[in-house]
């Protein structure tokens, strides 16, 4: 009897079922709070034609950027991309499709996807290229555009602590997009720094309730820093 034990032992088990053409929602902001081992596993699997929904696309040799080398990514839905040369090359040559989405709209699209809300109105992007082809409606004299939600076949998430039934806590600003990503995957896989006993996480301090989580794997993280900035003196 498995009950609610969601811990898996191998990365193969963690990403089992991922196949060509699927959509994957990934947590993380830049290189902060990304599920490093799950990304590496997708690289090993050589799955192709993937659509990634993620705020950024990593750098050349770290984060989602590593999936560009074998052309595993067909399309990125992101707010800010292009921190690496191979991305730029594939984008400019038309090999890689990019759907630029304002950061807050992207976060809300994921949240809405997980929350059964198919679309919402926002003022963000009205009158800009983002609004092209989208419905406009006025509320209290202001114009808003209709944005549709996003769900994924998989969501890949990095958390700090998880209990084996999938309750999650995130660490500092490594939280970022991870809680929304966790709600929006048909299969949500979480790579964590530490697996704790059930009951160790206080009920009101849990960021993501276990109901959203399907698989948990304990990872080892490099936690590369994108822009090291230090206090003067």
């Amino acid at each position, binding site marked *: 009897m498995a009950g609610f034990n969601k811990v898996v032992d191998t990365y193969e088990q963690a990403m089992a079922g991922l196949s060509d053409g699927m959509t994957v929602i990934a947590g993380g902001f830049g290189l902060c709070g990304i599920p490093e081992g799950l990304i590496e596993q997708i690289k090993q699997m050589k799955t192709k034609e993937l659509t990634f929904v993620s705020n950024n696309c990593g750098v050349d040799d770290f984060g989602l950027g590593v999936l560009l080398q074998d052309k595993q990514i067909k399309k990125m839905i992101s707010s*800010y991309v292009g921190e690496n040369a191979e991305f730029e090359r594939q984008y*400019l040559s038309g090999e890689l499709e990019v759907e630029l989405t304002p950061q807050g709209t992207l976060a809300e699209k994921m949240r809405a996807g997980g929350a059964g809300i198919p679309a919402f109105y926002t003022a963000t992007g009205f009158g*800009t290229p983002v609004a092209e082809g989208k419905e406009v409606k006025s509320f209290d004299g202001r114009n808003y555009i209709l944005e549709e939600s996003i769900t994924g076949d998989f969501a890949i998430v990095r958390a700090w602590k998880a209990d084996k039934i999938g309750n999650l806590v995130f660490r500092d600003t490594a939280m970022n997009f991870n809680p929304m990503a966790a709600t929006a995957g048909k299969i949500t896989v979480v790579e964590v720094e530490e697996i704790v006993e059930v009951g160790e996480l206080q009920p009101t301090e849990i960021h993501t309730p276990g109901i959203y989580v399907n698989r948990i794997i304990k990872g080892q993280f490099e936690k590369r820093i994108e*822009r090291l900035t230090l206090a003067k003196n």
Partner: protein
Amino acid sequence: MALSRDQIAMRVAQELQDGYYVNLGIGIPTLVSNYVPTDMEVMLQSENGLLGMGPYPTEENVDADMINAGKETVTAVTGASIFSSAESFAMIRGGHVDLTVLGAFEVDQNGNIASYMIPGKLVKGMGGAMDLVAGAQNIVVTMTHADKRGNSKLLESCTLPLTGVDCINKVVTDLAVMSIKDGSFHLLERAPGVSVEEIIEKTAGKLVVPDHVPEMKV
């Protein structure tokens, strides 16, 4: 004389009020945090999910999990809160941030702003800028008055793809402070030693100039 980047930041800091929640964009806006008046408390919001951003860390306090929206390592002040991107933009979109300061390529006399995309160049994305300009009630744009070739960035109508429409109230440049209302720029202050004539010359959009234009205090 035209203001330095730090002087622009010093002037923007005069827009702060005690108890303000403030979002500072990348570049000159970030410098504003160095000039918060000492008799005033403000809290900095970073859109990746931090309210109460502190200074850069010392070497021993660097933490890869503690960054700001510019992906720089930072610290959190006492009393800070940390939350998801959805919560962060709920805060921004819902108009709870008191002041937003950000850069731009162009601003026009109708309060439109272009700041994220130059066609022909690689488009890297708007990040949180579109949400910030749509959500804030009170936005100050910082930029140089003209580009390196001398072309005005204060236009009748933006030429680049827009980041937001009818949303900018105030612009602080290296030459002047202007408000935007009723389809015009309104000259409020000039940089020390800069003539009204130079500002008029370098402003392509409609500019309303009062009889007396005081010098900025920076």
